[in-house]
């Protein structure tokens, strides 16, 4: 048996590796495709549901275990071909479906029906992948730990490979190399013996490779065109291109997103009603189909003078900057404003290489000024490191004009938009310096209230006793500019402010010494009943008073400042607001309800329900098997592997968050953490028999060590972070991997140990274990984000530690029950 199993493991190894590689790599590629073609909501939902397929594969395996055992080799062989085929077919079919993001009640059933079909199509490849890997684990017997290690290695490489591919290949083209790699792995599975079956199989594999290769040479956009949702900015500009009134200038691919630049005389972004000048031509910059910035298509800086009539120019009207800092601009507006000013130094911090490339090569030569320096870094990472002080800081990455709800963007982490981030910003200002955020007005008011609240708490952290004296809120019809000073604003500056706003027809909602009658005079906004002030003024008064916490509790949106532990600035959701929104807005309430959080809840519930539907079947079959019914073993299997799947995911997500702060780059952080965890866990898996055999306490010891390390890391990581913050990027990555390695190594041991225990006692339970682990991973991926948003990332560490401790105790339970009662259970039919 051992010999056969080793042999099987050896033959299956390449296929398992590439199937694992493709499953993760395609997950990244599909996520990017859905982001470009659809909206964050739906891509998140589809991805989380598609991964259900992985767990469902294990369930299918369990339901048809006897048949799969008899047909292992054939199923694996042709299943590999099937998986390779399913990738491009399901993707292409999915893009053909008439999906609609609008769900009117009268057309709810057909609209939902198409989305269910879309989801099923995307589940199929992951179901096949889950089934095949589960089958390999099942057939490998006691050597399952090798298969698991190969699975982890393949997944790690797939994570890194997927990110790398996205840098060079269009997202809709990633499916092709994934399919080719899986097909090629079929070469290791060519049947031995008769020539006929050999040729047929080999021919199919080769034919598939050739077809996919031809598809790649034809061009992914031709063979796998993305069906861009008609309501996206990308679809709009494509319509203008089709009728000859716009032109695509640049398309660049990268792990951070697809960047498109379009030019048209019909693009007119960013102007104010003030201006009577004819604005210059503007190019529109899109990332993943969403408009993120505007590039002025001008030949000389003077053509940008109209920008001096916009709200973004307010800081320059109040101070004469020496040094200006622009954080995260994805366009050229703030750059031109800075260039028009007296600034002697202009620093632009932009982490996206493709956006930097667009800026560098744009015909307006916006960077062609000796005063301009471009820094490739995340805004928060730059603020953490810089010792330079600036007179004006524009938080351009926080600019936005979302009139509606934040959608799934509410789930996005932003370390600049936290109390700690704003505090770093204040520290980077000169004594007379001003930081500025311009953001659109919403109804009900939310973004700008949160911005003001975050500044106030950041000022208080910097020991400012009267933060109200260092804040200004000015607005036009569409947006609010919130300005914060390093020092209290002088009376001279306040007088200048009032004059400027009067001349520009801007309203003031807050400045030092403001009286209610001085506000809300030109652009009237609603406010408390019986008063003429706006809700912004009211909010400022409340936040600056002892009633602050009460105001946060009562406001219909979550406007409590984000922190590094809960860095979700764009999360405005409140459960207790839903009933009020429904009663006020009637049928239109969803548009006000911050659906991002609700989509996440829906995804978590949906995946949990699916698991609850798909798992009982295999478990019931297991119980009905011949021989002794070991209900306790079944529950042990569910509990042990669910604890491992959930704990692994919680720790991984927590480390991604920590490393995003540490490395200052979310893509690099995800690659390092996912790759590092899977790689070192794979090493742990390979070493598992030796470790658990020699270590006193076996898996109990390793699981408890994981729990203790996780708790230790919460405390020690901030020290490591502070110490290593000044290191160059490569050494930071090395330091980070040093933290990950021992933890991940130990995390790789319990799972294969559990599988080998099941092989001895109840081999039929192995696919159930695989299914449980798969479902737990998927549910906990959504659950982790929910928990982090609700309680903070530290709690994820604590829960993960608890889950591994639980797994350790369960391992002890199994070992002790085996010692007292020999195992005779045979679930084979």
């Amino acid at each position: 048996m051992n010999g056969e199993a080793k042999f099987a493991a050896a033959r299956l190894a390449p296929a398992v590796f590439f199937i694992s590689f493709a499953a993760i790599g395609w997950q990244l590629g599909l996520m990017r495709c859905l982001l470009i073609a659809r909206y964050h909501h739906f891509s998140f939902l589809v991805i989380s549901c598609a991964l259900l397929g992985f767990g469902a594969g294990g369930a299918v395996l369990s339901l048809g275990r006897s048949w799969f055992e008899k047909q292992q080799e054939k199923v694996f062989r042709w299943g590999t071909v099937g998986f390779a085929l399913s990738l491009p077919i399901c993707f292409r079919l999915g893009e053909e479906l008439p999906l609609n993001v609008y769900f009117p009640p009268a057309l709810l059933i057909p609209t939902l029906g198409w989305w269910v079909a879309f989801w099923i199509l995307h589940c199929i490849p992951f179901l096949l992948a889950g089934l095949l890997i589960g089958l390999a684990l099942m057939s490998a017997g006691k050597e399952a730990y090798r298969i698991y290690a190969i699975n982890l290695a393949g997944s790690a490489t797939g994570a890194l490979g997927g990110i790398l591919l996205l840098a060079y290949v269009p997202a809709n083209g990633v499916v092709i190399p994934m399919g080719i790699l899986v097909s090629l792995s079929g070469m290791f599975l060519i049947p031995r013996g008769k020539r006929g079956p050999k040729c047929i199989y080999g021919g199919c594999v080769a034919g598939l490779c050739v077809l996919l290769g031809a598809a790649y040479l034809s061009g992914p956009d031709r063979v796998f065109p993305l069906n861009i949702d008609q309501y996206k900015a990308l679809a709009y500009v494509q319509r203008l291109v089709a009728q000859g009134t716009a032109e695509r200038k640049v398309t660049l691919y990268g792990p951070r997103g697809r960047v498109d630049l379009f030019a048209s005389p019909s693009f007119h972004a960013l102007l104010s009603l003030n201006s009577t000048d004819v604005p210059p031509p503007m190019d529109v910059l899109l990332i993943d189909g969403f408009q993120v910035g505007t590039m002025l298509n001008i030949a000389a800086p003077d053509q940008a003078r109209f920008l001096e009539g916009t709200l973004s120019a307010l800081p320059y009207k109040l101070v004469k900057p020496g040094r200006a800092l622009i954080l995260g601009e994805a366009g050229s507006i703030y750059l031109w404003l800075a260039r028009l000013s007296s600034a002697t130094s202009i620093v632009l911090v932009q982490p996206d290489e493709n956006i930097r490339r667009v800026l560098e090569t744009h015909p307006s030569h916006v960077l062609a000024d000796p005063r301009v320096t471009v820094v490739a870094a995340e805004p928060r990472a730059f603020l953490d490191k810089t010792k330079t002080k600036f007179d004006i800081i524009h938080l351009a990455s926080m600019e936005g004009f979302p009139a509606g709800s934040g959608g799934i963007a509410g789930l996005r982490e932003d370390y600049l938009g936290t109390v700690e981030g704003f505090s770093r910003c204040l520290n980077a200002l000169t004594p007379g310096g001003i930081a500025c955020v311009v953001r659109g007005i919403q109804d009900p008011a939310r973004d700008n209230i949160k911005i003001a609240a975050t500044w106030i708490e950041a000022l208080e952290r910097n020991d400012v006793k009267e933060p109200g004296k260092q804040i200004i809120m000015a607005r036009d019809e569409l947006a609010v500019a919130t300005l914060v000073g390093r020092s209290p604003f002088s009376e001279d500056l306040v007088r200048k402010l009032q004059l400027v706003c009067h001349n520009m027809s801007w309203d003031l909602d807050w400045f030092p010494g403001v009286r209610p009658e001085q506000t809300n005079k030109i652009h009237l906004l609603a406010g408390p009943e019986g008063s003429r002030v706006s809700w912004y003024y009211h909010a400022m008064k409340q936040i600056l008073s002892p009633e602050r916490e009460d105001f946060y509790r009562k406001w219909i949106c979550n406007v409590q400042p984000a922190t590094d532990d809960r860095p979700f600035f764009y999360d405005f959701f409140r459960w207790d607001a839903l009933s009020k929104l429904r009663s006020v807005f009637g049928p239109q309430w969803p548009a006000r309800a911050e659906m991002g959080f609700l989509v996440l809840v829906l995804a978590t519930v949906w995946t949990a329900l699916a698991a609850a539907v798909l798992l009982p079947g295999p478990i019931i079959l297991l119980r009905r098997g011949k021989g002794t019914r070991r209900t306790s073993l079944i529950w042990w299997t569910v509990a042990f592997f669910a604890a491992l799947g959930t704990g692994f995911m919680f720790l991984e997500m927590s480390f991604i968050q920590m490393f995003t702060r540490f490395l200052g780059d979310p893509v690099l952080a995800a690659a390092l953490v996912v790759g590092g965890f899977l790689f070192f866990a794979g090493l742990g898996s390979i070493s598992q028999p030796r470790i658990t055999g020699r270590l006193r306490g076996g898996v109990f010891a390793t699981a408890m060590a994981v729990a203790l390390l996780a708790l230790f890391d919460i405390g020690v990581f901030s020290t490591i972070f502070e110490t290593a913050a000044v290191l160059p990027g490569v050494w930071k990555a090395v330091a980070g991997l040093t933290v990950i390695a021992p933890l991940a190594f130990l995390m790789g041991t319990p799972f294969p140990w559990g599988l080998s225990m099941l092989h001895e006692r109840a081999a039929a339970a192995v696919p159930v274990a695989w299914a449980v682990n798969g479902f737990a991973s998927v549910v906990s991926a959504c659950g982790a984000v929910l928990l982090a948003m609700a309680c903070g990332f530290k709690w994820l560490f604590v829960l993960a530690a608890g889950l591994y401790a639980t797994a350790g105790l369960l391992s002890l339970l199994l070992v002790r029950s085996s010692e007292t009662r020999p195992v005779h259970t045979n679930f084979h039919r």
Partner: protein
Amino acid sequence: MPNSRQITLISAVCIALSVTGPFADLDTAPGAELPVAFSERQPDRKEMVDSQFKGWGRTTILDAAVLQAMLKVPRHLFVPPSHVALAYQDGPVPIGHGQTISQPYIVALMTQALELKPGMKVLEIGSGSGYQAAVLAEITPDVFTIEIIRPLYEAAADRLQKLGYGSVKVLLGDGYYGWKEFAPFDRIIVTCAALHIPPPLFDQLKPGGKMVIPVGGTFETQRLLLVTKDESGGRSSKALELVRFVPLIRGTP
């Protein structure tokens, strides 16, 4: 109201279409005697006006001219056949090409906010289906509307013509710079396109004129701005409350 030449033209078109098409029974000009197209689904329009223009804390639509226009214009003829069932629901309706026809309440509220009188000149940026233009044309004949997306422009122009709104001038083009040949306007309505920023049409507005700008996502108007130009050319704005709403829960400020 259409002039006699337009009535003749409309009649000729109607005769030509007498065997096919949704206007097969359109045998008289609007205004003289209601053609069948205008009498279709009147109960739905009455229900729409009676139930959607008040309640839910909404600003009640009281302007008689606006109510009459909303009762008259056959909204269902401005939506794609696949969405006809949604025409009178209390929400926006997709019309293709990434556009929607606004929720009936929003159309009525914007029209009421304009305080339109017969004889006033009104400019609309973003014709879409032409529905808003038709509603405006029921109050004043001098409606000018501009659409940038060719298929929408063609469909709107054709539809407005066939329904007897021949006085409405439809232009294919970039409405960002307004329509200088016919400026200045008493009223301007701006349906913001994908880029969500309004154009600088202020100088095409007469002193005392008003501009209404809906701001929001594709499916939901979040805010309605009413910009006014005073007699000396200065500007002020007011956010029109779509609903009377206090964004506080559990207690008072």
